[in-house]
């Protein structure tokens, strides 16, 4: 709704759009308890927001520098209400969200501002929630939003990028969505509900992209597939005490078959596209895991092959690291340790030392393993990770 209103008022007035939505929700909170929740709450909210928008436009249309394309129509009573109606109409709200997505993920904004702005305007998160999601102060988030809005004003319009710029701009949008997802999926430091919200919003935004002809592209389906495979496992990733459950130990019967089937569908669509992206390969890896009956019977050869492909697209230490883990499964811990030795640039990561510890332990080198776990524990602040590492240290005797 903020997205639709922002298009109505112009990118310069994103706060005005937020105000109206706020006012709409306040009205709902005042009226619904007395008059009951309307039959179609969404339609009610839509109607109230529309009327408030019309009031504001009537009062302020002279002063507002509205979007040029609509200025004449919004200034005249002939067309004011039908124009507002049309701009807030349900089918075009999806398009507005897409436009807004591209604007929020504009390359001129730093990533952290992109994410904060996307959560505020596209997902309707409040400042305290965003602050909790990123474990920073509300003041920091306010600052990020303020700077993002300033940059946003400088951009002026919020339109789809022209076809020639679509691919690189889409890459930014996808990267932000994936970041949103990972924030929800990987972080164990915040409350369960916020994590679920972040995952759901990332899936929703990506799904929205697949439903628009312009952005219905292979890499979008690939990212959606990748996130869905992960989401299918999310319930089994953390136990009742909030501790991480490793892939090896997850209860595969509790993986969400419907989400996996949906992921399969999007992976098929992804492969039908022209381009080949990182998300394609990562989704393919996730698919191999999702379809393996047990950890031991996973097709590790296929996974190593996929990591090799991924390394050709992006020779990063994290991918080399993951490949080494797969090598350990396929060829034994000694071969895995050798592959891990070759990885440079992960020495500051607890994951690297934890994995090194696992491989040393499996080779019976318990003292070295314990030292690796201890080092890993100093490198993470996540309580769940620390708990896991402590258990492993204890197991080393």
């Amino acid at each position, binding site marked *: 709704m903020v997205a639709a209103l922002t298009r109505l008022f112009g990118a310069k007035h994103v706060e005005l759009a937020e105000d109206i939505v706020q006012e709409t929700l306040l009205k709902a909170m005042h009226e619904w308890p007395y008059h009951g929740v309307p039959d179609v709450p969404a339609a009610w909210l839509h109607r109230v927001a529309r009327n408030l928008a019309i009031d504001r436009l009537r009062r302020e249309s002279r002063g507002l520098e509205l979007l040029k*394309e609509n200025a*004449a*129509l919004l*200034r*005249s009573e*002939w*067309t004011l209400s*039908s*124009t507002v109606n049309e701009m807030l109409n349900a089918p075009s709200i999806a398009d507005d969200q897409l436009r807004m997505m591209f604007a929020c993920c504009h390359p001129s904004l730093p990533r952290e501002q992109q994410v904060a702005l996307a959560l505020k305007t596209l997902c309707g998160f409040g400042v305290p929630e965003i602050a909790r999601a990123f474990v920073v102060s509300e003041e920091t988030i306010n600052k990020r939003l303020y700077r993002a809005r300033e940059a946003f004003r400088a951009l002026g319009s919020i339109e789809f990028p022209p076809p020639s710029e679509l691919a690189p701009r889409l890459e930014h949008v996808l990267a932000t969505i994936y970041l949103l997802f990972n924030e929800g999926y990987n972080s164990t430091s915040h409350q369960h509900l916020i994590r679920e919200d972040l995952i759901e919003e990332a899936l929703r935004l990506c799904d929205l992209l697949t439903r628009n002809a312009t952005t219905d592209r292979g890499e979008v389906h690939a990212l959606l597939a990748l996130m869905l495979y992960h989401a299918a496992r999310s319930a089994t990733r953390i136990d009742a005490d909030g501790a991480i459950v490793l892939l090896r130990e997850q209860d595969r019967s509790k993986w969400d078959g419907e989400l996996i089937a949906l992921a399969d569908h999007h992976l098929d669509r992804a492969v039908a596209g022209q381009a080949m992206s990182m998300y394609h390969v990562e989704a393919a890896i996730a698919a191999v895991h999702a379809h393996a009956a047990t950890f031991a019977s996973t097709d590790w050869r296929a996974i190593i092959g996929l990591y090799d492909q991924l390394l050709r697209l992006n020779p990063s230490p994290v991918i080399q690291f993951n490949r080494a883990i797969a090598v350990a499964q396929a060829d034994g811990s000694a071969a895995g340790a050798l592959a891990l030795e070759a990885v440079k640039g992960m020495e500051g990561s607890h994951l690297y030392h934890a994995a090194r510890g696992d491989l040393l332990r499996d080779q019976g080198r318990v003292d070295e393993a314990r030292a690796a776990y201890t080092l890993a524990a100093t490198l993470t602040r996540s309580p769940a990770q620390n708990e896991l590492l402590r258990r492993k240290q204890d197991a080393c005797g």
Partner: protein
Amino acid sequence: MSKYMFLFRGGSDMQQASPADQQANMMKWKVWMDDIAAKGKLHGGEPLSYGAGKVLSGRTMKMTDGPFAEGKEIVGGYLIVDAKDINEAAELGKGCPIFENDGSVEVRVVMEM
């Protein structure tokens, strides 16, 4: 480019129509004006209520209550557009939905002083 004014007369009084008809009618006006706006030729204008109105006339500013004319003669609104000549302005006027309700569009040149 000069400015031209459309004066709308007659048509039916939309305030008497059902909300659905009103909305359908306003949508037609919007489609027409959208088209003019898309060409960058729409200046603005407003509809006029068929309800209360006053006419002041003469030295004594004698005040009489509206309506000011019968049916077809009532001015229902105005619109100002840009056009290169009166013919183009008249062409733009042809899309007006008022004709469906038996109204008329008077096209006039805005005088440049």
